[in-house]
């Protein structure tokens, strides 16, 4: 019988946390397309070891990652292996939007934001807002201009596009459907994200 795995629905503009065991795969699905999903992870056994875009960059010698690449921890260890990706464009540069992203940059108080989305879900694991790792912004599109600037633009992802990663360690993970509805980033239309967790053998 086919294993459909555990499905977690992340409502538009909200977050969800979950655990993934070593050997399981986690698939992040952009249900309606053009929606960034902030993804963070840390080791279940030692939450001070966190998935890190900065350390991944050093390992890959690239801003971007592709199928076959490992995503690295703050301790320099591979935590996830990218095994499928129907989009191929993700961001590992922009910090999670937080309350100040909206209050300082856009003069809006009280807007939903990724940092609070992630922390609200991770607080039950005893984590403070400062413990929330820097995110990988799946499906987010931040191309490099010829003069080293970051272009602010919408994702290229279409409905049902996904990325699948194999967990190499037991992980606490969280996903936020980015609530950014002011600048390009989610097509000015915030939509849900689905997460599917399966045994590795069932995903292929």
């Amino acid at each position, binding site marked *: 019988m086919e294993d459909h795995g555990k499905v977690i629905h992340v409502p538009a503009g909200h977050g969800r946390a979950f655990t993934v065991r070593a050997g399981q795969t986690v698939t992040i699905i952009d249900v309606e397309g053009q929606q960034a999903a902030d993804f963070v992870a840390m080791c279940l056994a030692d939450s001070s070891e966190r998935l890190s875009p*900065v350390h991944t960059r050093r390992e890959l010698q*690239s801003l971007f990652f592709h199928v076959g690449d490992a995503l690295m921890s703050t301790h320099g260890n591979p935590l996830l292996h990218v095994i499928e990706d129907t989009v191929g464009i993700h961001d590992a540069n922009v910090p999670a939007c937080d309350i100040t992203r909206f209050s300082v940059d856009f003069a809006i108080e009280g807007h939903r934001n990724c940092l609070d989305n992630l922390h609200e879900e991770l607080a039950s694991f005893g984590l403070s807002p400062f413990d929330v790792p820097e995110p990988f912004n799946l499906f987010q599109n931040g191309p490099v201009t010829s003069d080293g600037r970051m272009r602010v633009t919408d994702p290229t992802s279409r409905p049902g596009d996904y990325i699948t990663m194999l967990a190499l360690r037991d992980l606490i993970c969280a996903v936020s459907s980015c609530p950014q509805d002011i600048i390009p980033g989610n097509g000015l239309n915030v939509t849900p994200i689905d997460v599917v967790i399966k045994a590795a053998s069932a995903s292929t």
Partner: protein
Amino acid sequence: MLLMTKPIAREAQSLRTAHVAAGTVGGIDVLQGQLLKIMAAGPGAVASLFGFVSGDPQLFLSVHHTRVFSNSYVLGLGMRLVTNRRRPLMVLGKDTVGTHDLLMPASTTAYLQAHRYGNQQGCVEAVAAELKRLGLAPPKLPDPVNLFMHVRLHQDGRLEPLQNKAAPGDYVIFRVLRDAMFIVAACCTGIPGNDQPAALELRVAEDLAEF
């Protein structure tokens, strides 16, 4: 001193300096409006910069928020370096080198050992020890701004470590906008072409002429 409509209510300080030996870290506190000069004292120096706002341990220089604040992957003249709450902390006002890094992590002792740099102290451990010595306890150790580190960003996202261009006497000068403690590491970075630690000089002045 900044040209305020009402004069700043503090005495002007005289020039202060700190020497950071190769492979070590140094700290210097800077008051609002002062200039911070960071100078290479040897060839190929890298200055990994960390900043902590005085009186509020939860506010620190954030390289990640600095990039998104200016929508730029690279540091340029006139750019504001901001805190983790997206408020300006300092501005890059002068720069004799022009190649800096906003993307690479601080080294750790374990990383340097694993990559055959021998038994050198990593930047992370050195900065953590200096924070402890200073009695500062930020909720996390931020990632650094790697001044003078030469890593070319290609348009396809490739990061190419290149030979560091800093020569003795090269410098950057920041106008600092909030009272803050800056910690500057001259540790081995573990980034090829930028992995030979060299000494640094830190200077703080009210006005450019004092340098």
